[in-house]
């Protein structure tokens, strides 16, 4: 029972944080309100050119202001939402929202999401600490540090705009890899093995991917569909692959290296052991990335098919980039097996000769 109770702690903490952050509206300068009552004013059916039927609902919302000078005041406003909800949200009683105010008239700006976000963060880190024990500190610091570096780099990129995003991501990849490897095993030769194995595999994978794409003339690859690309979409696409696959490749490289450094066999046997481990983990690791990359395209794919595009067209245009990304990431995961095994076997041997 005591053991089970321990697992409830993160959930209870998450709920507590969620409730606590219902009272943080004083921290915002933007007006925040809580929905106290909703009433449907009008429901219309909408039919578009492709015969899609949707329901559009106009609701009257009673909102109590939670901050600014008008605190405590109740206002009414209107909110229109659709059943499909592509660009709008249905408001529910109890929910908190940000408001825009113009000459005393309030309109919905956005849903306030800080409480649920913070609750999820608490739950995630709580579970990490429960599962990993003392080691959780290192993992958490490594995650936070990587996140911080990423934010700073992106901010800097947006500020200067001089750099191609590709170089930024390439440098970031090196920093992430080295930092994470050091956090996993400490400042030891094995960290160098992990980092160089992962980086080498990723670099060769991207080069190989680019080579195959060039040879086949990019047929069926629609870079114009790369999202939010304001500069060369190709480079952004490869940047996504590098950063996206790094975690999986690092995971694999550290599994292999740690095991090889523990063995006391000849270099050849060590290499073979590394290959055996890699062989077992590469399949599942590829499906990790694959599922994420493809599931990411769901919303747009459904939108495309519903807008009277054929299934083939949707698969090629929308899901195609996801497939290409998964495949090139998979190159990295497969290549990391022999590369890390070789490097680790070599470096482990050198270390033994020295000792």
């Amino acid at each position, binding site marked *: 029972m005591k053991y089970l109770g321990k697992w409830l702690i993160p959930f209870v903490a998450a709920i507590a944080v969620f409730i606590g952050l219902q009272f943080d509206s004083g921290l915002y300068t933007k007006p925040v309100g809580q929905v106290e009552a909703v009433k449907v004013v009008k429901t219309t059916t909408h039919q*578009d050119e492709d015969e899609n039927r949707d329901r559009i609902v106009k609701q009257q919302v009673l909102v109590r202001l939670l901050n600014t000078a008008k605190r405590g005041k109740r206002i009414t406003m209107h909110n229109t939402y659709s059943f499909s909800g592509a660009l709008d949200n249905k408001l529910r009683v109890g929910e908190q929202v940000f408001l825009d105010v113009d000459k005393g008239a309030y309109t919905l700006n956005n849903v306030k*999401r800080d409480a649920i976000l913070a609750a999820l963060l608490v739950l995630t880190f709580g579970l990490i600490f429960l599962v990993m024990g003392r080691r959780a500190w290192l993992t958490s610091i490594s995650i936070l540090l990587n996140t911080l570096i990423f934010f700073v780099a992106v901010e800097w990129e947006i500020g200067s705009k001089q750099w191609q995003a590709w170089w930024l991501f390439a440098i970031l990849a090196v920093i992430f890899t080295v930092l994470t490897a050091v956090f996993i095993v400490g400042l030891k030769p094995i960290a160098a093995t992990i980092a160089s194995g992962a980086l080498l595999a990723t670099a060769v994978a991207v080069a190989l991917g680019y080579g195959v794409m060039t040879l086949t003339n990019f047929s069926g690859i629609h870079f114009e569909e790369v999202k939010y690309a304001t500069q060369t979409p190709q480079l952004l696409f490869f940047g996504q692959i590098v950063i996206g696959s790094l975690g999986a490749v690092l995971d694999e490289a550290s599994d292999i290296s740690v095991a090889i450094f523990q063995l006391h066999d000849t270099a050849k046997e060590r290499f073979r052991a590394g290959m055996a481990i890699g*062989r077992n983990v590469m399949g599942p690791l590829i499906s990790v990335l694959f599922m994420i990359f493809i599931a990411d395209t769901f919303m747009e794919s459904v939108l495309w098919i519903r807008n009277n595009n054929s299934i083939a067209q949707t698969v090629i245009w929308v899901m195609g980039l996801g497939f290409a990304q998964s495949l090139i990431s998979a190159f990295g995961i497969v290549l990391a097996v022999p590369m890390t095994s070789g490097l680790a076997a070599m470096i482990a041997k050198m270390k033994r000769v020295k000792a």
Partner: protein
Amino acid sequence: MNTILALALVLLVMMFIVGGKQGLSNFFALTVNALLMILVVILMASGFNPIIVAIIFGLIILASTIFLSTSQLSVAGPAFVSSLLIMTLLVGLILLTMTLSQTAGFGPEDSEALEGFSVYIGVSFPHVLIATTLLGTLGAIAEAAIAVAAGMNEIKDQASDAGLNKWDTRLSERR
């Protein structure tokens, strides 16, 4: 030749060289999952409830990923069962958090991509987002379950309380 097919072919060759028969089996699992994911999109777009579609196909994808990734039944069995438990837990958590966070659909930054599209398509984007989240996590769940089950299978003979403690210290030392 089509680029995606060429990339897939190169991957197939590499997986065979590195992984042999196991590599081929992994590649087969990947192909099956790719077809299943396309089928999921088609079903969601034809009006089936995305959440139910995601749960049903989630089970199939978990099964194909786990049972095609490892040939040992003593690893695949426990991995599959624990993945199912985690998936059940996650369905609840995802339904709750996605409902509370209301992050589905498109933002102002998507306006360029949405140009020319009708967004009132009669398919609930919040439901599609739940499907995306659920299926997006399955690969990671399967991977972790297989890794733990395979590791425990390796050490099962030496597993006594004292032995496990030793493993624990050894693990923390090497890390």
